[in-house]
C-alpha cells in the first residue's frame, strides 16, 4: 500500500478525534473517508463547446469495465483532471497538480477537417507536451476527437453497411461529394444510400470522421478492425493509455494527495485548539510525499520532457514504480527472491544512482531525475531491510 495513503487514513482518524465536538465537520470528514475508499474522481473541464459530454461518453465505452474511476463534468475537489481545450493554451495553471492531462479536443477539425487532420493534431500535441513552459502544469497532452472515437466504438451494423457501400464507389467519383456536408446529404447522390442515413452518418462521425471511415474501409479495414482503427486514430486509445498509466495505476496516491489537500483546507477554514498536531502531521505528510515526485518523474519521462540515456530510462521507470510498486516489481525480480539478494540489488542501485545524481557532466534535469530515483531506491532498501517484502516505501 502507499505510504501517502497510510498517512491520509491516519490523519483523517486524528481529525475525527479532534473535531468530535463539531457534527458538521465530522460529517465532512466522513465524506472524505468514503471518497478515500471509493473510485478515482476525474474532473472533465473545459469551455463550452469543447466536447466534454461526448468525451465522457467515449471514455465510458472505451475503458475496461469495472475500473474504479468516475468521470464528472462538475466535480469539486477532484483527484485528477482532464482539461479539454479546442486550442493549446500558453501555460497550464489552476488545475489539479501532478494529475492533469490536457486534451486537445475536437481534433478532427484541426486544419479544416481533412483526412490527415487527426494525424496533424497528434503531432502538435506531442510537440506541445515537451515544451518546458507547460511542464509544471500537466502530465500529458493528448489530441482527441471524442466524436470519432465514440462513433468508432459504437458503430452499428447499418452504419457499417452504408460505409461499405460508399467505399465501394471509386474515389474519383465520390470525393467531390465528400467536400461538404451539404453535398454529402444532397438528394442527388451517386451512391444508393438514403439521404437520411447519410445525414445520420455526418451527425455521428462528423465530416472528418466520414472521410476517414470511408478511406479505412477502402483500404481493407472491416468489422472490429474498422472500429479499432477509428478509435486509435481519434486519439482515444492514446488518451485511455494516458489515463491508465498516469491516473489509474497510482490511483491510491492521487486519492490520498487530494484528501490531504482537502483536509488541510478544512482545518484552515475551521480552526480548533487541538488541531495543532494535526496540522503538523499534514505538513509532514505533504513535504515527504515522495510518491508524488515519482509520479512527476514518470510523467516527465513519458512525455519526453526529461530524457535519460537509453540504458537508464527503463530502469528509472521501474525503480520509481511505473510497472508496480512492490519491492520485487521495482527491482525487476520475481516475487520469491531471497531477501539477501534483494538487499544486494537495492544497495547497488542506490550507489549507482547516487553516482548519476552527483555526476557534474549530466545536465541538471537528468540529475534531478536521478535524485528521485535515489530516494526511491533508499525506500526499497529500507523496506527490504525492515523485513517487509510486499509493500513499497
Amino acid at each position, binding site marked *: 500500500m502507499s505510504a501517502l495513503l497510510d498517512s491520509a487514513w491516519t490523519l483523517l482518524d486524528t481529525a475525527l478525534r479532534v473535531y468530535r465536538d463539531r457534527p458538521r465537520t465530522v460529517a465532512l470528514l466522513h465524506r472524505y473517508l468514503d471518497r478515500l475508499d471509493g473510485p478515482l474522481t476525474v474532473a472533465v473541464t473545459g469551455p463550452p463547446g469543447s466536447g466534454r459530454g461526448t468525451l465522457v461518453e467515449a471514455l465510458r465505452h472505451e475503458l475496461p469495465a469495472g475500473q474504479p474511476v468516475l468521470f464528472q463534468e462538475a466535480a469539486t475537489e477532484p483527484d485528477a483532471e482532464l482539461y479539454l481545450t479546442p486550442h493549446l493554451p500558453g501555460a497550464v495553471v489552476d488545475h489539479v497538480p501532478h494529475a492533469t492531462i490536457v486534451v486537445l479536443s475536437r481534433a478532427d*477539425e484541426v486544419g479544416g477537417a481533412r483526412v490527415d487532420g487527426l494525424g496533424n493534431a497528434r503531432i502538435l500535441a506531442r510537440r506541445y507536451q515537451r515544451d518546458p513552459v507547460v511542464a509544471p502544469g500537466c502530465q500529458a497532452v493528448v489530441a482527441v476527437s471524442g466524436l470519432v472515437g465514440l462513433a468508432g466504438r459504437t458503430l452499428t451494423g447499418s452504419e457499417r453497411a452504408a460505409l461499405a457501400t460508399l467505399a465501394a464507389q471509386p474515389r474519383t467519383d465520390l470525393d467531390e461529394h465528400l467536400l*461538404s456536408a451539404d453535398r454529402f446529404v444532397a438528394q442527388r447522390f451517386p451512391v444508393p444510400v438514403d439521404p437520411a442515413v447519410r445525414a445520420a452518418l455526418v451527425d455521428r462521425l462528423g465530416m472528418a470522421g466520414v472521410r476517414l471511415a470511408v478511406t479505412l474501409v477502402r483500404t481493407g479495414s472491416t468489422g472490429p478492425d474498422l472500429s479499432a482503427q477509428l478509435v486509435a486514430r481519434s486519439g482515444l486509445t492514446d488518451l485511455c493509455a494516458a489515463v491508465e498509466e498516469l491516473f489509474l495505476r497510482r490511483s491510491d496516491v492521487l486519492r490520498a494527495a487530494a484528501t490531504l489537500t482537502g483536509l488541510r483546507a478544512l482545518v484552515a477554514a475551521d480552526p480548533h485548539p487541538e488541531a495543532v498536531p494535526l496540522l503538523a502531521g499534514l505538513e509532514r505528510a505533504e513535504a515527504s510525499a515522495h510518491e508524488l515526485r515519482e509520479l512527476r518523474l514518470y510523467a516527465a519521462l513519458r512525455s519526453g520532457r526529461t530524457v535519460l540515456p537509453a540504458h537508464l530510462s527503463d530502469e528509472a521507470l521501474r525503480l520509481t514504480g511505473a510497472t508496480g510498486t512492490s519491492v520485487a516489481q521495482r527491482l525487476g525480480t520475481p516475487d520469491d527472491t531471497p531477501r539477501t539478494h534483494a538487499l544486494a540489488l537495492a544497495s547497488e542501485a542506490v550507489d549507482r544512482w547516487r553516482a548519476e545524481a552527483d555526476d557534474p557532466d549530466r545536465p541538471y534535469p537528468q540529475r534531478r531525475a536521478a535524485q528521485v530515483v535515489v530516494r526511491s531506491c533508499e525506500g526499497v532498501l529500507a523496506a527490504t531491510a525492515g523485513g517487509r517484502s510486499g509493500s513499497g516505501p
Partner: protein
Amino acid sequence: MAHLWLDVFDEIIGACAARGRDDLVHRLDVRRTHLLSPALRVLVVGPPKHGKSQLVNAIVNAPACPVGDEPSTTVPGTVARDGLILVDSPPDAEPGLDDADTVLLVSDVRRDISPADLEFLARAVRTCPNLIVALTKIDLSPHWRQLARRSQQRLAEAGLPATVLPVSAELRLRTASGDDAALDEESGIAALVARLRADAAGKAHRLAPYAAAAVAASVVEALAAPLHELRTTYADRLQRVQRGVEDLRRQSVRWQTGLSDDIADLASDVEYDLRDRTRRIVRAVDEFFDTADPADVWDAFTPWLEENLRNAAEANFAWLVERSHWIAARIARNFAAYRAEALPPSTFWMPDDVFDTMSRLERPAFGQFTLPQRVFSGLRGSYGGLVMAGLLTSLAGMPLVNVVSVGAGAVFAGKTLRDEGGGRLQRRQALAKAAVQRHIEDFFLKFSKECRDVARQVHRALRDHFTALVDQLQDDLAQAARVAAQDHPDAAAAREHEALQALYRKVRAIAAEPASGIAA
C-alpha cells in the same frame, strides 16, 4: 454632400490646431486620409478557432494570414486586395473601431454568437453602422441553415442591423487549386466579397459621412472637456463661499444664547461659592467661641477674622475671573475656523477698595463683672446657704449664724459667683458669635453684589467684542463672494463654448443627411 463632411472635418482640424491639440489633429488627419481613399477598411473580429484567419485568406485568395493549428495572429495583420483592406484583429487587444468603415464578425455557424461579441457589435454600430456577420464552416454541418437562422434572430433581437452571410473558407480554398464554379458558389465567399465591394463603391456618399460624423463628434467633445472643467470649478467655489456665509449666520445666533446661559450659570455658581466659604468661617468662629472668652481674645481675634474674610473673597474672585476666561475661550473656539486669535484682552481684576467699603467689626459690649457686682452676687448667693445650714444647725441648738452656716454660706456664695461668671461668659460668647455673624453677613452681601456687577461687565464686554468680530467676518466673506463672482468664466470662455457648440451642430448635420444609406 460628398464633401460636406470634408469641410467640417477641415474646420475641426483647424480648431484643434488652434488649441494646440496635436494629438487630435493627427487622429483626424489619419481618418481623413482613410475616408477619402476609395478602399474599404474592414475590421475583422471574432473568437479564436472560428476560422477568422482562414476566411481572410479565402477572401483575398492567397495565404497571407498564417493559418495554423495553433492560435496565431498575435500581431494585427493588414491585408490589402482589390480595394479592400482587411485588418485582422488580435484576440486579446481591443480592436480599433476608430478607423473602420465596416466591421466583419466571424463566427462558427454551429456555435451561438457569444454575448461578448454581441456587446462589441452594439458598441461598434455607434461609430461604424456597417455590420456584417460571416458564419463560417458551413461545410461541416448539414444543419447550417437552421443554425444561421437562429443567429439571425438573435441579432435582430439585440437590435443590431447586421447582415448575415454563411460561408465556408475551406471550400473556397479548395477551388483556388481547381476551377470549380459550383464549389465557389457553395462557399458563399463570392457573395461576401460582392457585398464588400458594393460597400466600397458606396463608401464616399454613404459610409464616409456617418463615420466622419462619429469621429468628429468625439473630437469636439474632447475639445470641450477643459471648458467643462473650468465651469465646474467656478460653480464649486461659488457654492463654497455661499455656504460659508450661511454657516457664519447660524453661528452668530448660537453663540449669543450660549453666552447668556454661561453668564447666568457663572453668577449663581460664584454666589454659592462665596456662601460656602463664609459659612465655613462662621462655623469655625462658633467652635472657637464655644470655649474661648471673647473679652480676653477679642483683640487677637479680629485680625484673624479679617484675614480669613479677605482670603475667601480673593479666592472667590479669582474663580470668577477664571470662569470668565473659560467662557470667552469657548466662544472664541466657535470662531476658530474663521479667525485663530479671537479672545479679547483680559480686563478683570478685583477692585482694591472692596474691603475698604466694608464696615469694621465692632467690639460688642461685653460688660464687666465689677467688684461691687461680685460682692452683691456673693451675698445674694450665700443667703440661701446660710439660712439652710443655720436652720439645720439650730436644730442642734446652735444659733442661726454660726461657723457651719457661715461656711455653707461661703460655699454657696462661691458657687453663685462661679455660676454667675459662667453665665456672663456664655452671654459674652453669644454676643460675640452674633456680632461676628452679622459682620460676615454684611460682608457677604456687599461682596456678592460686587461680583454680580463684575459678571454683568464680563457679559457686556464679551458680547460687544464678539459681535464686532462677527460683523468683521461677515464683511470679509461678502468681499470674498464679490471676488469669486468676478472670476466667472469670462467672455472669452463663453465665446469658446459658443464656437464648439456651432461645430457640434455642423457635425450632427453631416450625420443626419444620408438617412437611408447606412444599413444595407
